[in-house]
C-alpha cells in the first residue's frame, strides 16, 4: 500500500508513535496528521494507518466514523463552519448562516458546485462571549453578524482570505 505523504508528515508520525504507552493511542493523532496532509481520510489512508500501527482497518474505521472532525471526503477549498449552539444562536447564528448560504450559493451541510466552499454547522467552539463564531479553515472569526457574514463571503469569493 502506497501513500504519497509529505516528508514532514512521516517525520511527525515517526516521532509521535513511540511517545505513547501503547501504540494504539497514536491512532487519532495519525488520523489528524494524514487528514492534514491529504485533506481527508480515504480508504487507502485508513488501511495505511492501520498497517502503520499494527491494527486492523476496522479499528481505524470505527474512530473515523465516530469523530465529527474526521472526514472521508475532501471539503471545498474553503471549509466554513458556523457554530449553531445556544449562545451563538441567541446572538443570531442562524441568520448568519442563512446569509452565508445566500452569498455563497450553497446550503448548509454541502459543498458548492464549483468546489469553492463547504458550509457546515458545528457545535459550541468555546468562544461564546464573541458569538456568533464562524471558522474558515482553522481561522476563527468572531461577532459575525449577517452583515459581517456578507463581508466574509465576499472575501472568500474574491480569494482574499
Amino acid at each position, binding site marked *: 500500500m502506497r501513500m504519497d505523504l509529505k516528508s514532514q508528515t512521516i517525520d511527525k508520525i515517526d516521532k509521535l508513535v513511540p511517545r505513547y504507552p501503547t501504540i494504539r493511542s497514536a491512532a487519532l493523532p495519525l488520523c489528524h496528521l494524514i487528514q492534514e496532509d491529504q485533506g481527508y481520510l480515504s480508504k487507502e489512508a485508513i488501511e495505511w494507518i492501520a498497517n502503520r500501527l499494527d491494527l486492523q482497518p476496522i479499528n481505524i474505521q*470505527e474512530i473515523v466514523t465516530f469523530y465529527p*472532525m474526521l472526514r472521508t471526503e475532501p471539503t471545498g477549498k474553503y471549509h466554513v463552519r458556523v457554530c449553531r449552539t445556544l449562545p451563538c444562536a441567541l446572538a443570531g447564528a442562524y441568520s448568519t448562516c442563512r446569509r452565508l448560504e445566500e452569498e455563497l450559493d450553497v446550503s448548509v451541510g454541502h459543498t458548492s458546485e464549483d468546489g469553492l466552499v463547504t458550509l457546515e454547522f458545528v457545535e459550541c467552539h468555546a468562544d*461564546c462571549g*464573541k458569538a456568533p463564531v464562524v471558522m474558515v479553515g482553522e481561522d476563527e472569526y468572531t461577532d459575525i453578524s449577517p452583515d459581517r457574514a456578507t463581508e466574509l463571503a465576499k472575501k472568500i469569493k474574491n480569494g482574499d482570505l
Partner: protein
Amino acid sequence: MEHQQYRLIFKHVDQPDYSNDIECYIKNGGYEDLKKAVGMQPEAICQEVLDSGVRGRGGAGFPAGMKWKFLDRKSGKPIYLICNADESEPGTFKDRQIIHQDPHQLIEGMMCAAYAIQAKLAFIYIRGEFYEGYQILERAIEEARNKNFLGDDILGSGYSCDIIVHRGAGAYICGEETGLIESLEGKRANPRIKPPYFPAALGAYQCPTIVNNVETLCDVKHIIHMGGEAFSKIGTPGNTGTRIWCVSGHVQKPGYYEFPCAGVTLGQLIFDVCGGLKPGRKLKAVIPGGSSAKVLRADERFKGKLKDGTDFDWGVEDIPMDFDSLMACGSMSGSGGVIVMDDTTDMVEALANINYFYAHESCGQCTPCREGVPWMRKVTARMCAGQAREEDADLLMNIADQIAGRTICAFGEAASWPVQSFIEKFKDEFIQKAREQAALRNDGKPTKIETTLI
C-alpha cells in the same frame, strides 16, 4: 455598582504587554512555584491541595485533594495525569483563554500536580477545534522542556515527567473523563462503567489516573504559591478560591469574569458586571453552569437551608455565585458557563436548540440515551416546525425522566436536566405553542413560523 474582579488565574489575561512565551512568563515570576514544589515532599503538596478545599472546575465540583487521595498507589502501576482541555460544555470559554494567553501557567500547574501525585507521564487532552491552542501548547511545552521545567530530572530533583498534547476530534463526550480516556487510548470515546473504572483506580491503560480540568490544575500552582490555608480563605468555606464565570447570551457585555466564590450574586454578575440586558428587555431565564445545568426562571424564589444550617430565601438575582448556592437552588455552577436569555427568547426553540446538541453528541452506548435524546430532539424540532401538540410537554418530561439515572455516564443527566427544567418552569409556553398553532390551523393559516434558535 463596581464589583472588583479577583484575577488569580486570569491575572495576565488580556494584559496588553503580556505575551504567551516563556520569557514573559518567567519575567512575571513564572516557574518559581514549580521550583518550590520539587523541593517539597509530594505528600506535603497533596496535603496543601486537600487543605485548600479546591473543587474541580470541570463540572462536577469534586474536591481535587480528595480525588488525589483515591489514587491507587499500592498497585505499583505507573500513575498518569490528564488535563481535561476538552472545554466542550456549551457556554464555557475559560480554558481557551488560559491556553491561548497563558499556557505556561497551565504547564506549571500540571507539573506541580504531576510531581505531587508522582505521575510517570502527563497528557493534555485538547479538543480538536482548538488547533491554534494546540500549536501554542506544543511550542510552550518545547520551551519548558528546554529550560528543564519538564522532561528528565526536572530542575535537578530526580523527578522526570513529560507532557503529551493529544487532540480530540469534535466529540463532546470526550469531555467525560472515562470517554476521554478511551479516546486517548485510540478508541471511540465510549464512557466506561463506574465502578470499577474510577480513573483514580483504573484509568488510562488500566493504570491509576488523575483527570483534572485546566482551571483546577492552574489552581494547584496558586495553592503551592500561597499555601492551602491561604487559598481556602478566598471565597467561603466549602467554596474556596476564585471562579471564572463565562457569560454569554443576551447581556450587553458578554465575556469572562473572575471573582472569589460567592463574590458576586447572579444579579450583580448580569446587571452590574455585564452591563445588564439590551435596552427595553427583561430577564427571562438563566442557565448558570453550562447548557446541561437546570435553567432558572427570572421570577423564581428559592427557599431552604444551606449545608451549614442557615436559612435562605433568594430571588434569582440574589443567588451567590458559588458551588453550593446554585446547587441549593436545584441547578449547578457546572463549568461556569452562564447563558442569559431575555424576554424575546422562545423557550421551546431554546430547548430545541439544546436538544439538537445532545442528540448530536450521544455516544450511543446506552439505549435510553441513544434512543431517548434524539427522540426529545425530534419532538422539540416538530414543535418548532408547526406541528406542536398540547401533550408534547408531558411526553418530553416522560422521556427525560426515563433517561436520567439509567445510563452509563452523566451525559444522560446532562441531556435530561435541560428538558426537565424547561418543562417544569416554562410548561405554559410549550402548551401555548400548540394552542397558537391550532388556532392558526383553524384559520387556515400556515403554522410554521420563522424560527431563530433552530
